[in-house]
């Protein structure tokens, strides 16, 4: 990344007071900027992380980086969590339905529409929603996560949180449910060719029972994908949060890149990677309980 962000901090501080060379040196040290090679600086960061020190933010000097991220992570968890769960449910439900009606008009229609929405760039869909629903028709608020004028305990504050989250949420769900839909549709069609379901059909079981039997096996690959897709939704979320100025982690990452705020970047990446790893670990444990076949192996 260009330049040296520490010099920028020193520059802004020197506008108000004059700094002695000793003060500059200690400032550099406190920002983690030593003259050593970049690997030494990196290991210094890693060592600091284990003692709970994630560094000081450069754009909001002297706020610690972790404080900035803690403020925004609530919004991100709220937005991404709801988006992930809803898109998973919607996509799998539609996929299951399509697979059982495959070849029909409704199957083709849903497939093409899902594919179309799935190919939309996240940020462009966000721009469209912003343009049509908040700027042209004023149905939803334009930016932020809540109304600044309301006190955080009143019921109208919670209402403003809901109205602010609808557009980013809708963008994330519409742009990401297609992957679940296509996956579930393919898996169900493959499962329907299995002998046990052919037998169920021949034995004259009710259609709803067959759907029930097929979904349990068909959903397994999508469940593995659930944890992996966390990375995908974070990527989409960065763009969506930026367009709607939603004060989450993605917005932080974007601002940190623009302002060369390395400590905030490093800390948010660390948190993202840890959360993706933990989610995968939990999913592996759950998978063991969900699929009896792998327990024997």
């Amino acid at each position: 990344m260009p330049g040296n962000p520490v010099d920028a901090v020193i520059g802004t501080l020197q506008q108000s007071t004059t700094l002695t060379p000793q003060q500059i040196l200690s400032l550099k040290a406190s920002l983690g900027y030593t003259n050593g090679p970049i690997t030494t600086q990196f290991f210094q960061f890693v060592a600091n992380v284990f003692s709970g020190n994630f560094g000081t933010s450069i754009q909001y000097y002297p706020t610690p980086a972790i404080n900035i991220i803690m403020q925004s992570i609530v919004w991100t968890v709220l937005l991404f969590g709801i988006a992930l769960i809803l898109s998973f449910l919607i996509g799998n439900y539609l996929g299951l339905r399509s697979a059982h009606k495959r070849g029909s008009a409704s199957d083709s229609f849903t497939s093409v529409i899902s594919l179309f929405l799935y190919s939309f760039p996240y940020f462009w869909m966000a721009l469209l929603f912003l343009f049509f629903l908040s700027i042209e028709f004023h149905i939803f608020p334009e930016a932020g996560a809540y109304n600044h004028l309301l006190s955080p305990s009143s019921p109208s504050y919670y209402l403003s949180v809901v109205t602010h989250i609808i557009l980013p949420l809708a963008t994330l769900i519409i742009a990401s449910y297609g992957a679940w839909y296509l996956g579930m549709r393919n898996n169900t069609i493959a499962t329907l060719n299995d002998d046990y379901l052919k037998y169920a059909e021949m034995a004259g079981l009710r259609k709803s029972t067959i759907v029930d039997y097929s979904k349990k096996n068909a959903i397994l690959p999508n469940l593995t994908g659930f944890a992996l897709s966390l990375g995908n939704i974070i990527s989409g979320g960065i763009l969506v949060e930026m367009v709607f100025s939603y004060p989450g982690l993605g917005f932080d990452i974007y601002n940190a890149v623009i302002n060369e705020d390395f400590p905030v970047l490093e800390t948010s990446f660390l948190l993202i990677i840890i959360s993706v790893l933990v989610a995968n670990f939990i999913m592996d444990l759950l998978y063991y309980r969900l699929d009896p076949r792998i327990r024997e192996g």
Partner: protein
Amino acid sequence: MDSNIDNGEIIQTIHAPAKQGSSTNFLTKFLSNRYLFSGSVIIIAVVIFALYGYFFPPYNPSATFASNLQPSSAHLLGTNYFGNDILSDFMVSIIPTLEIALIGAALALLVAVVVGLFGGYFSGMKNELLAFFINVFLLIPGLPLAIVISSGLEASHSNLGVLSLAIVIIVTGWAFGARTIRAQAMSIAGRDYIRFIKHTGESDFRIIFREVLPSLLSYIGYVFTNLIIFAILLETSLLFLGLGNESIISLGSILYFANNYDAILLGEWWWFIPPGLTIAIIGVGFGLMSLGLDTIANPTLRTYKNAKKFEREKRQPEKNHLHESSNEES
């Protein structure tokens, strides 16, 4: 794992006749696959429009007029903040957008095929290590990584231009393809006929390129189309965030300028709707192609309608044959 083995067996049976078949056989196969056909038609239409726009834009995209003009007969999509004709700017940008995505996707595919093929063919420690490596790359969220790489490259090697975007696409995209190809290569490599060829003393290199690679072609096509979609979305996202070189001409940069010069607040829909819609249409075209290639790779996915048609076609020659034989008798 079970389903992979099934697919592998089916692929074998599919590809065996294809080797002997003529080019007309391929053509009928291509035309009868409605997803592949409609996807290709969309892409060809976009490319023709893009080529026309690239060489014959209504105005020189850098010519300036009055700024922020509304759409009119002289400027079908108006002019932007800088006074450039938006339609010309848009038409000229499609080819470079596709070019970056294709270069990036092709290079990522190359890495994915090499890693996937060798990783899937050779078993043992190396394979396990490779699988671990692929999984690590799959876990890292793509866009944050891409943001860091591209802003880093932009700072240290600002002369790379388009190539820096291609590098970002390779680093963040190869793992998806490598995983798909590796899984299929593994199931093929475990087959009896491959083991038999190995016993005849054929070199591993030859087996990989003569036997394993041809039977994975439809998977490779599937991975390639998906990589192109991924590349276009990643490229336009990065440029939209303002992280690429600003001089790069692309649909993403148009959206970046539209967003930064308040096209949305001013209601200038003609500035940001055409580029985004084009990205979506290109995505749909390649998406349909990937669905079509997926049904070739996994015949179980074929819809009921096609299956019936297939049976009808299969029965047809038998009838003709009976007919001919009865003629001979008379």
